[in-house]
């Protein structure tokens, strides 16, 4: 039996996997990294993160959301330098200790030691200035947007250096949502103009420094951006929703990139979920094929919003592995 890591490599290289990869099983995500301090609020609280972006997580809601209006960090994009100050990436060895210990405990033959990054370059732009203002600024103030993106990219590179120095990750799990369930936010031309080169720099840096696998989370439609994903060095697109026509993507791009998702979280991860719904959706997903595809909830972490759903999906994938392998 292949290890989780070996099985994943067989899937993405077009080899001979001996079962489906079960969601995030191949990634051991190091959430203890001090760089993540303040990224997530506790439910029922609100406050600013390290970049000054104000978030709210109301009690009973399933996640946190940035709040703009009076809290907007960049009040005028032409003066972004006045408002934006990247947080420090320097932390003491003591602050890194828990992350290092976690990374050292991982059997790297079995799993990839994985560095997470939440709120990528596009998300950072709209978190700092609100979605509407950011999207309008791409048209009205492109030079300032390029400058802001360069600044965020430099931060990501500094973050990457610290991560590489401290935990020597095998994989990167990087979040940046680029669309809605129906389309990308930006046209492919605009996406290319603003984001291709910055991401080539960031993902290239990780790969030049020992990272074997780049997994990018984007739980939306983004099929029109796949050529850029390949060019920027993404190995696995996690969060690939069913609206993307996954079989067609596999046929067109399999071998250059793999698709992880196919089980839309909104469809199975809700208070009234049951095993029958889960099994039906997992079966549909597994029918996408054994290669270049990893059945997974589109959720951006190895959890579900409602207790038991993530585990139920795992069980259903096990069943499909027995049936199809």
């Amino acid at each position: 039996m292949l290890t989780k890591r070996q099985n994943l490599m067989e899937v993405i290289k077009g080899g001979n996997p001996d079962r489906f990869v079960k969601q995030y099983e191949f990634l051991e995500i190091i959430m203890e990294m001090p760089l993540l301090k303040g990224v997530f609020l506790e439910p029922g609280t609100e406050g600013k993160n390290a970049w000054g972006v104000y978030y709210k997580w109301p009690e009973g809601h399933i996640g946190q959301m940035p709040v703009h209006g009076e809290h907007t960090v960049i009040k005028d994009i032409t003066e972004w330098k006045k408002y934006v100050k990247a947080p420090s990436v320097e932390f003491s060895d003591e602050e890194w200790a828990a992350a290092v210990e976690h990374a050292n405990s991982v059997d790297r033959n079995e799993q990839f030691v994985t560095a997470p990054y939440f709120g990528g370059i596009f998300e950072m732009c709209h978190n700092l200035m609100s979605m509407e203002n950011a999207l309008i600024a791409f048209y009205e103030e492109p030079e300032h947007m390029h400058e802001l993106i360069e600044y965020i990219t430099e931060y990501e590179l500094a973050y990457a250096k610290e991560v590489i120095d401290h935990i020597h990750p095998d994989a990167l799990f990087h979040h940046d949502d680029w669309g809605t369930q129906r389309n990308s936010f930006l046209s492919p031309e605009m996406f290319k103009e603003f984001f291709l080169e910055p991401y080539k720099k960031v993902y290239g840096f990780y790969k030049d420094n020992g990272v074997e696998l780049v997994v990018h989370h984007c739980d939306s439609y983004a099929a029109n951006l796949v050529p850029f994903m390949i060019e920027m060095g993404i190995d696995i697109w996690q969060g690939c929703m069913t609206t993307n026509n996954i079989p067609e993507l596999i046929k067109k791009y399999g071998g250059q990139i793999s698709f992880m998702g196919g089980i839309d979280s909104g469809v199975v991860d809700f208070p009234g979920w049951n095993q029958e719904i889960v099994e039906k959706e997992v079966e549909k997903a597994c029918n996408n094929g054994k290669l270049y595809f990893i059945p997974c909830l589109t959720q951006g972490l190895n959890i579900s919003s409602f207790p038991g759903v993530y585990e139920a999906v795992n069980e259903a994938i096990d069943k499909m592995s027995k049936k199809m392998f």
Partner: protein
Amino acid sequence: MSNLQEVKAMVEQGKTKLIAGKVQEALDEGNTAEDILQSMIDAMGVIGDRFSAGEIFVPEMLIAAKAMSLGVDVLKPHLAGESTSSLGTCVIGTVEGDLHDIGKNLVAMMLEGNGFEIIDMGVDVSPEKFLNAAKENNNVKLVALSGLLTTTMPKMEETVKLIKDSGLPVKVIVGGAPVTEEYAAEIGADGFAPDAGSATVKAKELVNG
């Protein structure tokens, strides 16, 4: 190209820095404010259709809506009455328990661009707040409910029921990622739209009876 056609083209192309001057030119040329407004409304109709067809993306829609808004600012002193609205008032918001606002904001901009007066209730809006806004504002013809989370769909249903049970003569339109035409019909909404472009078409259809 006449100034009216140029105004329409500038809104479609989102020429935010030039539109005010062009609207002024159109006025100076002797066009009525109503005709100029109609040319901009027509432009937003084109934008909505192109967005629904996937030919343009969110920034193009936003920049067009902004251009229209800047054009309307020039027209306002010349329009009869205080309001530029001819379709009535729309109360819009994201349902209780949901903080997502992008889709709701886009629909609000498109509806405003097409002649509705907008009362934007924001996000996480309770059924009672929607009902009160529909009662307390003038000429409310439409209530638009947005929701992105599967978990908040019951709140959408509750809001539709409360408004319908109140007997107010308003139509209710719903939308958002998990919402389907079938679900909209099941909860008693009058209309559903999958995106901001088609929301405008549906909203006009609903209020024009």
